[in-house]
């Protein structure tokens, strides 16, 4: 017995990009007192000069909604023509229903299926992989991928290791059919045996029962070692699968985890000077699943990359999950 396959088979690519950066800028000086630190210390260890925190009336869905609308406008696509909405996040207020269902309703994507992806800082690239596969298979024509995080809700502001790192924001892209392939094969994986390295503690069920907040904890040195030790090879594999040489890249847009990780990866990859390195973390902090579209948007806004140029993105974090692709700038 043979069942039908989806009708169409096409190439896919990024059609539009949009972001939302919360209004409130938080400089290092605002955070240093509780962690007995200094602006200089934070800059040296992370590259972060300032970050943005969302307002009390904002959340993952509201920020993601604005980024999504901006991405649709950039792509010139109506919300009713979106077949699937995927949101990468781990700071949505509800375990259920999903942020994607809320965002789809907010933007009027009435014909869309909707689900969230839980892969933390790797989530955006996971979602890109899924969206690319959906479009190429014909199961969806246009897919909206959103990365949105309100990490200020889950940060322990008394923890010297993490208080200054995380921030809020949202980014979105539309993935749809293109004449030539605009997204490379994905390299991805996860090592759950090290899941305690970045973890919410206590778990949300215990937190709810005991009336204590479930906050993000991270063993910075272990994460740094994993990221620097493994992501260089992952990036080389991504390039290899894409068919491009390192010199053909216009930009390297890694998850904005810590500028020291970015710098170490750049050194490992031996990238040429012509490759633009995303360092949005300096002004945006680490926004987990939102950091790659935010950083890409910053490069495009400043004219450092233009439509059609290839860039390498790689996300990595809790799980320990990672994923990455080369794609063409929308």
């Amino acid at each position, binding site marked *: 017995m043979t069942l039908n396959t989806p009708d169409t088979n096409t190439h896919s690519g990024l059609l539009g990009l949009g972001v939302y950066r919360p209004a409130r800028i938080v400089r290092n000086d605002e955070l240093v007192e509780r962690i007995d630190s200094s602006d200089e210390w934070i800059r040296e*260890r992370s590259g972060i000069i300032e970050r943005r925190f969302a307002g009390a009336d904002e959340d993952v869905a509201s920020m993601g909604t604005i980024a999504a609308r901006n991405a649709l406008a950039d792509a010139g696509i109506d919300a009713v023509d979106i077949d699937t909405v995927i949101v990468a996040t781990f700071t949505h207020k509800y375990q259920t229903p999903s942020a994607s269902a809320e965002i789809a309703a907010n933007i009027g994507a009435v014909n869309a299926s909707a689900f969230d992806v839980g892969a933390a800082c790797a989530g955006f690239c996971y979602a890109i992989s899924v969206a690319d596969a959906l479009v190429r298979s014909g199961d969806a024509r246009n897919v909206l991928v959103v990365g949105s995080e309100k990490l200020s809700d889950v940060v322990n502001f008394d923890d010297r290791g993490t208080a200054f790192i995380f921030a809020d924001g949202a980014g979105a892209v539309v993935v749809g059919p293109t004449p030539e392939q605009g997204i490379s094969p994905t390299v991805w994986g996860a090592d759950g045996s090290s899941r305690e390295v970045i973890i919410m503690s206590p778990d949300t069920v215990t937190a709810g029962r005991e009336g204590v907040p479930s906050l993000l904890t991270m063993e910075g*040195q272990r994460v740094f070692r994993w990221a620097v030790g493994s992501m260089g090879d992952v990036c080389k594999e991504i390039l290899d699968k894409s068919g491009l040489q390192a010199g053909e890249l216009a930009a390297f847009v890694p998850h904005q985890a810590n500028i020291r990780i970015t710098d170490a990866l750049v050194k490992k990859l031996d990238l040429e000077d012509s490759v633009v390195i995303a360092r949005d973390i300096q002004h945006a902090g680490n926004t987990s699943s939102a950091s790659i579209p935010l950083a890409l948007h910053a490069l495009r806004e400043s004219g450092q990359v233009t439509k059609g140029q290839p860039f390498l993105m790689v996300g990595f974090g809790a799980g320990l999950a990672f994923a990455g692709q080369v794609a063409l700038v929308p």
Partner: protein
Amino acid sequence: MSQDILAGLAQIVNEVAGIPAESVQMDKSFVDDLDVDSLSMVEVVMACEDKFGVTIPDTEVKNLNTVADAVNYIAAHK
């Protein structure tokens, strides 16, 4: 052998943290004397693994306070 390890380690510390190789002496503390911060220390450890063919687990890194600690660990596990 310790002298060779010290020389190799000094070169790594110089490459990772920009500290003059001649400052990397056995009695020096990475953090307090050489100003190698926690993330640079991880880079030093990873470079030592490559250079000397040893494995330095995460749990061991925090015990490597001085240059001598690192040299002795490498010598014992090479």
